[in-house]
């Protein structure tokens, strides 16, 4: 340092360079939307604490109203101990400090928590302190404190610590974690989380290669989670529930039959029907639903990020939903079996001939296929022409199959085959009456349930659907200019205020690399900040004092 001071004097300032590492476009909006969706966002960065705090302010993660808990290793007390140089003493002292601070903040936190309108909490922690805080003895306190905070900023963290923090939340809090990063130092974090996302960009492709999903810009995370993630959850729930339902309805119909056969195990359906049920007659429509179903459009999904919480709460695949579907499957199977068998006990064609076992079972199977496919149409949120094609197609394929199957009799058939069954059935008017009656009777219960649920106990997404059902297809809400006339005076005032330039925060989003000029700039603002030991300005001023000889 002293040699540098000997050399660097009487220099002429020519210019200054600065590096601007700008935030990507749309990041603050994205983070704000995601936190509205109930997703907690933590920042783990290798930058120093001031930079990290400034970035957090720029991103809307921190603001002036929040109560910030700062655990930093750059306090005076720690610096003093570090200057003494004794490693074990440093370690012990830092651990004590961290423990003390954690305890203090943990005690303070509940009072803010209790009042719902109180300030939110934020935690800022340094890499060195994190090293001690992640030890088994302090880990639980750290986890509890950080889970109570709405945002957490960790600065000066090494890649290993990033992974450790992620694992801490993943295993300790048992929440789903998502890591997003763009550099090679984020790779361990990306792999430690449940879902790792790499941003492909200027820093190379290491993060992308280690990740589960790769996106091009940070703001696409909003689309990924709120639109595609949400749709994916809804589609998956629907597909799984429907699969169980249709197989339950199909199998239980046979089950009720066993009560009438003396429990001998006689099949109700033909073998081919059973095998092809899941392969041809009911497979394609549910695949179409799983691919194309959208409950609300993508722009609306981003407009109401709170709808994401439906997935977090697992509202569409829990015990209650499964029980309801199972009940309806049981009810429908009862309808299928008893309607068909009781009504066919005296039904006959125009010439008085009675139906046999295979006629009744073909009738029942036709009703099952038709009803189950129609039920799918009832549970879709969006119907495209592919839905109609696949549902209609499945039913038509069933008829084509049974026409072919019962029209052919070969040497290789099993005993008592289905020869001519469907033609016999379709020559009776009983067939058409039952084909109309049974699906309606079976779906009556579902229709009633869905109607009542949607009308009296709607889900959030259904409310959004109904209020926006008159909107134009792809265009979202009308321009805000148009809605101004409909606002009350109060709302107009608050609208106008929010459009004024925001108050200037003392954190401007810029941070300087060297900490030594803080006191210098502080004096420029008219504030007195006691200079720190490493303050360059102080050293410079000291040197100049001792200079005169």
């Amino acid at each position, binding site marked *: 340092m002293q040699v540098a001071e000997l050399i660097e004097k009487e220099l002429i300032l020519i210019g200054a360079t600065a590096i601007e590492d700008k935030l990507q476009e749309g990041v603050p909006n994205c983070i704000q939307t995601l936190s509205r969706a109930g997703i907690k966002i933590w920042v783990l960065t290798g930058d120093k604490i001031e930079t990290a705090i400034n970035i957090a302010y720029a991103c809307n993660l921190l603001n002036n109203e929040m109560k910030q808990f700062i655990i930093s290793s750059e306090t005076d007390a720690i610096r003093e101990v570090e200057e003494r140089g004794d490693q074990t003493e440093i370690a012990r002292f830092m651990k004590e400090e961290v423990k003390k601070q954690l305890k203090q903040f943990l005690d303070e936190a509940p009072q803010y928590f209790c009042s719902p309108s109180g300030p939110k909490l934020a935690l800022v922690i340094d890499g060195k302190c994190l090293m001690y805080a992640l030890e088994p003895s302090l880990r639980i306190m750290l986890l509890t404190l950080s889970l109570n905070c709405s945002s957490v900023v960790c600065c000066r963290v090494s890649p290993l610590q990033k992974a450790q923090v992620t694992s801490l939340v993943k295993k300790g809090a048992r929440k789903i974690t998502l890591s997003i990063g763009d550099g090679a130092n984020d790779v361990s974090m990306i792999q430690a989380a449940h879902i790792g996302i790499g941003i492909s960009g200027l820093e190379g492709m290491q993060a992308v290669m280690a990740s589960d999903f790769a996106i091009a810009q940070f703001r696409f995370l909003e689309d990924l989670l709120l639109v595609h993630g949400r749709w994916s959850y809804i589609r998956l729930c629907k597909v799984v529930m429907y699969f169980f339902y249709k197989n339950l309805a199909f199998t239980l119909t046979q089950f009720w039959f066993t009560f009438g056969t003396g429990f001998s195990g006689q099949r109700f359906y033909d073998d081919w029907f059973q095998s092809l049920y899941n392969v041809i007659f009911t497979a394609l429509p549910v695949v179409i639903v799983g691919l194309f179903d959208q409950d609300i459009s993508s722009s609306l999904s981003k407009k109401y990020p709170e709808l994401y919480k439906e997935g977090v709460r697992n509202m569409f695949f829990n015990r209650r939903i499964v029980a309801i579907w199972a009940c309806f499957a049981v009810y429908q199977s009862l309808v299928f079996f008893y309607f068909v068998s009781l009504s066919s006990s005296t039904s006959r064609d125009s010439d008085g001939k*009675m139906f046999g076992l295979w006629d009744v079972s073909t009738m029942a199977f036709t009703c099952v296929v038709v009803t189950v496919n129609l039920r799918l149409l009832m549970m879709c949120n969006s119907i495209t022409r592919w839905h109609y094609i696949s549902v209609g197609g499945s039913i038509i394929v069933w008829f084509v199959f049974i026409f072919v199957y019962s029209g052919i009799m070969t040497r290789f058939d099993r005993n008592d085959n289905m020869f001519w069954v469907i033609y016999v059935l379709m020559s009776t008017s009983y067939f058409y009456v039952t084909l*109309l009656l049974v699906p309606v009777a079976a779906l*009556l219960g579902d229709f009633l349930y869905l109607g009542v649920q949607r009308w009296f106990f709607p889900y959030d997404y259904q*409310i959004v659907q109904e*209020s926006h059902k008159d909107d134009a297809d792809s265009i979202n809400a009308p321009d805000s200019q148009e809605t101004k006339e*409909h606002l009350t005076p109060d709302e107009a005032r608050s609208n106008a205020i929010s459009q004024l330039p925001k108050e200037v925060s003392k954190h401007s989003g810029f941070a300087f690399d060297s900490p030594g000029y803080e006191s210098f700039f502080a004096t420029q603002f008219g504030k007195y900040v006691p200079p720190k030991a490493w303050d360059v300005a102080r050293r410079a001023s000291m040197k100049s004092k001792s200079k005169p000889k």
Partner: protein
Amino acid sequence: MGVIFIPVGLVTLRASHCVIFHSMVVEIVDRYDIDCVPEPSRMDKVSYIQDDSIPKNCSRFMKVHKYMKAPIYIYYQLDNYYQNHRRYVKSRSDKQLLDGQKYRDTSSCQPVESNNNRPIVPCGLIAWSLFNDTFEFIREGAELKVNRKNIAWKSDRGHKFGKNVYPFNFQNGTLIGGGKLNPEIPLSDQEDLIVWMRTSALPSFRKLYGRIEEDLDVDDVVVVNLMNNYNTYSFGGKKKLVLSTSSWLGGKNDFLGHACVFVGCSSLTLAIIFMLLHALWRHELFTLEQEKLFRVIRTRSTYI
């Protein structure tokens, strides 16, 4: 939602049809298996039915309570008879029915496959248990002509039972299960057998016996001379004779009529209720302005 109202409307239309047809079919049912057992044998009906020396003829009276238009179908109804039992349904050989003795692989017909080392045609329990009660109908002294042709499905007669296959070694064993077959008549013309071999779905079923081509007036008394040959006494089964007219929907079926009416009415009620709800009571949640909607969604979703 509106799309669902349409089939609902259709169903209600049908409900009116159901009410109409419900009353058009006339049916007379007579259970005869208990009453046709003569007094001394009432204690041990099984030995009565198995004893060939006791004559099995019996006379029953059926009174017509409503005008019945020809053709009138004659059915025999069996209750507690499990034609849908797995071992029973399995016990036949369709290939043998087409090919006769030439076809050798009749193992599915066990134990009624062969007798004294000679194959049985048609083999299997279904054929072995052929129903063999016979009925004759007399009205005012004159016999009513019963048409016993064309009582089996045409597809069965034409394609499932061979025209050159004759019964062979049939019902020759020690255990008699049912009726005998005339070995001179090919299987495709043995309509009773064909009707019997179309196994039914439920333990209580009817099978067509024949047709009466004349009308029956109100208060006609039909005398039925029947031969009570078939043994349903060993397992507590019931035998009934049914005379029935037919409508476009089939026989008399209370269930179908009631189901029709019920489904039609409930669908109509639901349709009306939902239409009223939509038209009159615009749900307040669904017509909120956007600002309020934001707030509602936000407050609803904070309960995590």
